């Protein structure tokens, strides 16, 4: 997964976990049963590095996205503050600022749509030869398709995302400048 895709996923999960108890519980189960990550195969990684040189443009896009969420929804402020000592009411009030602003920013720059049209919790059919990128089988994964199972997560797809472009000569790592009032 690319950095910006991960950022999106983390962002979406964050709010679901915070506001959707059922989702949080499920996510927690998944975390517990998640097999340990396989040790990275050194050869392909080197290969990949050789193939795709670190592209400054993609890092720049991620930074632009972070700056956008900070500008519109104080995203970095929120992540960087230690929230453990605050009561839920304070977290909730701040989350409204982040949610309202980041949502406006996200919707203003692209569309996030569910991949599966059926409601979560419903039985669904999965044809054999389905696209493994858009649908993932979980649980007791075995046998040949077609499959029948319960839709756990509808999935998200980002459509037509356009991000601000960084101009040459400007440091994109400054996601928010310090401010001094005169």
């Amino acid at each position, binding site marked *: 997964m690319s950095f910006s895709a991960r950022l999106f996923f983390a962002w979406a999960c964050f709010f679901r976990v915070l506001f959707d108890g059922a989702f949080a519980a499920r996510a927690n189960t998944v975390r517990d049963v998640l097999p340990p990550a396989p040790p990275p195969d050194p050869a392909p990684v080197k290969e990949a590095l050789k193939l795709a040189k670190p592209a400054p443009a993609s890092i720049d896009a991620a930074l632009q996205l972070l700056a956008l969420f900070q500008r519109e929804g104080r995203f970095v402020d*929120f992540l960087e503050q230690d929230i453990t000592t605050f009561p839920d009411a304070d*977290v909730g009030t*701040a989350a409204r*600022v982040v949610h*309202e602003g980041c949502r406006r920013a996200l919707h203003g720059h692209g569309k996030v749509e569910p991949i599966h049209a059926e409601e979560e919790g419903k039985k669904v059919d999965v044809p054999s030869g389905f696209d493994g990128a858009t649908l993932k089988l979980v649980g007791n994964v075995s046998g040949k398709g077609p499959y029948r199972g319960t839709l756990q997560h509808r999935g998200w797809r980002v459509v037509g995302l356009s*991000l*601000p472009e960084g*101009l040459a000569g*400007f440091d994109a790592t400054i996601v928010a*400048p310090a401010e001094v009032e005169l």
Partner: protein
Amino acid sequence: MTTLGIDLGTTHTAVATEADDGGVTVVDLPQLVARGSVEARPLLPSFLYLAHESDGAQALPWDETRTFAVGEAARARGLDAPTRVIASAKSWLSHAGVDRRSPLLPRDAPDDVERLSPVEVSWRYLEHVTEALQHGHGIDAASAHVVLTVPASFDAAARELTVEAALAAGLENVTLLEEPQAALYAWLARRGDAWRKELRVGDVVLVVDVGGGTTDFSAIAVRDDDGALALERVAVGQHILLGGDNMDLFLAHVCEEKLDQELGPFERAGLLFACRAAKEALLADGGPDAVPIAVAKRGAKLLGGTLRTELTRDEIARVILEGFFPQVELGAQPIARPRAALRSMGLPYADDAAITRHLSGFLTRQATASGGEGPILRPTRVLFNGGVMKSTRLRERLLAALNGWLMAVGAEPAQELEGADYDLAVARGALAFGLARKGRGVRIRGGTARAYYVGIEGNAPAIPGVEPPLDLLCVAPFGMEEGAATEMQSAELGVVVGEPVRLRFFGSSVRRDDASGARFSQRRAHDVDELAPIEVTLPEGDRTLGDVVPVYLRSELTEVGTLKLFAVPHVPKKDGERWEIELSVRE
């Protein structure tokens, strides 16, 4: 030739062009959204930021050294450096009380800021549009046919100044179009030929355009033209500086009272945003009963400092419905606050916040515009436009007020024209009009929305303390069409060579029957408004300095849509000798 429709709005600018398939597309305009960050967006906020040296260059992909910014970055900077940001330049452009060519803006700028004139600000917006079209889309706006929209209430001088700004921005082929007409063109284009079934001869379409900062009314009648349907704009309203921003400000004020805390400009801006979103949610059908409002403080610590309150449905009803859309009686007129003797030089904001009262005033003033008997103009159809009108509840509210008045005079209720496009209709409609000029689609006729008059002092002995009686000479009749010209040979003026002659200038949006050359006493005319004075200077040349030259006035309505006035000598020294009279002069 490429055709472009440009909606140069008070708060946003948008551009439409023809898509490859012959349809209409709204063009994304690259603009600075934050320092070092450029993005193409369909709306270009009409804000200009004059950068401080500490801010460095406001670089764009096509200009690395620019010292000012137009668009989203400028709008955002208005929150934390408001004294260097220009907003509402368009309202200044139509403000007859100031010299619109002199550097006035920003009003509260510190001394080290080089101010710009309202004309120059409009020029910078249009310049940004042309550059964005060139660099973002490879469209050469300079050689395109550009339809530029102006409020229907813009007088001759404001229209002239708009064209001046467009020329300065390199747009050489410009035609002006009234915004409410553009909204109707957009609706017609969307409907295709089906509109001929939806509108009938005798229909009067009321266009209600409530944008961020302004409210504009127009009436367009459907006439019979040799068996075909023809459209004619029969009335336009006055310039009303009142819109959605006023509503958000009012709501923010209500919240601030509830928070019981003095907010800084940054927090207040955040509150405005939250109030706008809450307003939309609470006005929606089946919306919540209350919407929480959270306002973050300036610093990086979000938790602990964030203020919380809420807006309820009842408050929205009280503030928005009762405050801005009260159900008022037939014939109600907007309330004017008595003016203090010392007029401030600020923008002439509307005294009365009630949009329904402004509408009632318009319908009463224009009672006979479509040939009806009165006591009000009777629209049969209503087309809504502007962001505020996206709310079904507000449209219903306005329609209910209108239909109450119509019922009181025994007329049929008016119906809403469905399928409006509230945000981008003006840009789209401007393009549709541009294409209609090439012979595709119907045209709205109408000509000038005002009759224009020059004040001429009558011959009477001076009486101390009494102003000499003033006669008004009609120099351009109501409904004068593009390309038309008229001469007032009967009225002779003496102009001294080398000395500027200043004349008082007037307009009326209701006097439809004055022919050019008509002359009457100002005392009898209560339906005439004074505009900015006009001025002409006969240059030294073929004539001797100090000579008195007898001249008469000539007026022309150009193809662009601007009024030109000339002083023509009775005895010309050479063929076609005449001098243009400058509209809009102020000390």
